[in-house]
């Protein structure tokens, strides 16, 4: 409640959204089959609530919402894969867009680091989105099965990254400045309140990281996942960015990277406004709540739940993918 008083625009947005949906439920006369008004509004309100929860989990766990949304909807509904992936990019980017301001103000994110890392991510994202559309053109209905199968396999890898923790390093030792990182002067610092001191870090292995960001952007654009799940390990393990700054930078980077990848899907007509609207509004409102809850929630619990969900969803996706190819009944 305190948050709603502190941020009046959030209260207005939440009230307007809920008011609009309440009016739609109570004032619109029931329509004919096959989809009655109550069913449609059930999906709309359900999408908003689910998106709100996903945004909170995504911000707390330091990942984009796309990695939760896209596999669940692809695994458990029959909605066309192109439409799901387009909506997935919106889900992935909007919590990042809205949470950029407080993170930058706190000094956890440095805009210079974001711009350098965003360049390959943006290029990879657009490329991935275009390839997704070309695969759809070339393979037709079979591309659905292929996407589900590949995504299922990829999610197992993502779950492994989360499970292993990747040997993550909260505060990496200051590496020796050399190469591209030295040339660009990529040395940053932020005030760490839990330690009551300033944490400084030097970005290393920038060339390798740029290549990895190109790949992350491509996968995010192709599958509609965003790519936040891979950005934190790249920033933390490869570039030696402290974990907290890496998680915060990942969200801001995700929003910037997907801002270009979304356009090929819009041109294709895969972004269905009525479907995407409750998901977008849920991300915006949930993203603000998530940023507020970040310091109060045990991140480890959220991560374990996420791993379980990823494993179950990947099994379902692989099963549906194999069904699509006629391998399973």
């Amino acid at each position, binding site marked *: 409640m305190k948050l709603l008083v502190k941020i009046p625009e959030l209260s207005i947005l939440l009230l307007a959204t809920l008011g609009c949906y309440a009016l739609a439920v109570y004032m619109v006369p029931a329509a004919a089959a096959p989809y009655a008004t109550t*069913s449609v509004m059930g999906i709309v309100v359900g999408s908003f609530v689910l998106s709100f929860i996903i945004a909170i989990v995504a911000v707390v766990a330091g990942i984009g919402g796309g990695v939760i949304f896209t596999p669940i909807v692809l695994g458990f509904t029959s909605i066309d894969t192109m439409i799901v992936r387009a909506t997935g990019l919106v889900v992935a980017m909007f919590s990042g867009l809205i949470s950029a*301001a407080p993170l930058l103000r706190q000094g956890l994110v440095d805009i210079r680091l974001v711009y350098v890392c965003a360049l390959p991510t943006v290029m990879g994202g657009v490329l991935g989105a275009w390839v997704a559309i070309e695969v759809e053109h070339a393979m037709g209905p079979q591309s659905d099965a292929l996407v589900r199968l590949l995504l299922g396999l990829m999610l197992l890898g993502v779950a492994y990254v989360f499970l292993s923790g990747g040997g993550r390093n909260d505060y990496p030792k200051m590496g020796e400045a050399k190469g591209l990182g030295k040339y660009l002067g990529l040395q940053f610092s932020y005030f760490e309140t839990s330690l009551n001191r300033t944490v400084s870090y030097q970005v290393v292995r920038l060339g390798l990281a740029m290549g990895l960001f190109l790949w992350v952007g491509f996968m995010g654009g192709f599958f509609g996942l965003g790519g936040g799940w891979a950005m934190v390990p790249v920033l933390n393990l490869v570039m030696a960015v402290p974990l907290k700054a890496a998680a915060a930078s990942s969200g801001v980077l995700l929003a910037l990277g997907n801002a270009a990848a979304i356009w090929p899907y819009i041109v294709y007509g895969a972004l269905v406004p009525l479907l995407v609207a409750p998901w977008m509004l849920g991300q915006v409102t949930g993203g603000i709540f998530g940023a507020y809850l970040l310091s109060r929630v045990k991140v480890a619990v959220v991560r374990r739940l996420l791993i379980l969900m990823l494993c179950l969803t990947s099994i379902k996706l692989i099963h549906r993918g194999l069904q699509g190819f006629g391998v399973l009944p």
Partner: protein
Amino acid sequence: MNGGKHYGDILYWGTMAGSALVIVGSFMALVLGDSWMPIHQQYALLMGGQTLNHVPIGTVEFYTTGDGVILIGLCAAVLSVVPAILATLPHLWASGARIMALCGLLNAVLIFSAAVYSIS
């Protein structure tokens, strides 16, 4: 000071403005029934795995419907990234981070080009 605050603030309010338009569009479509295709039909097709034969984003009439207003809101929020980047460039340039300023400019050009190419 590298303009990060300006970047965050422009994105925040751009996203808020886009969200307001999305709510207006949702009201038009869901409450007033002003939609390019009846909402029940849209959902029946979507849940059945159909593609709606691609949303007609190239027609002017589309943007007078609730669906069109939602899409305008979404695009406005996404495109707020471009002025947000541009607002940081003078600060980066002045602080000597000229290569980062160029990276930012390239990002803005890429995003804007992708949008313009789509719209055209």
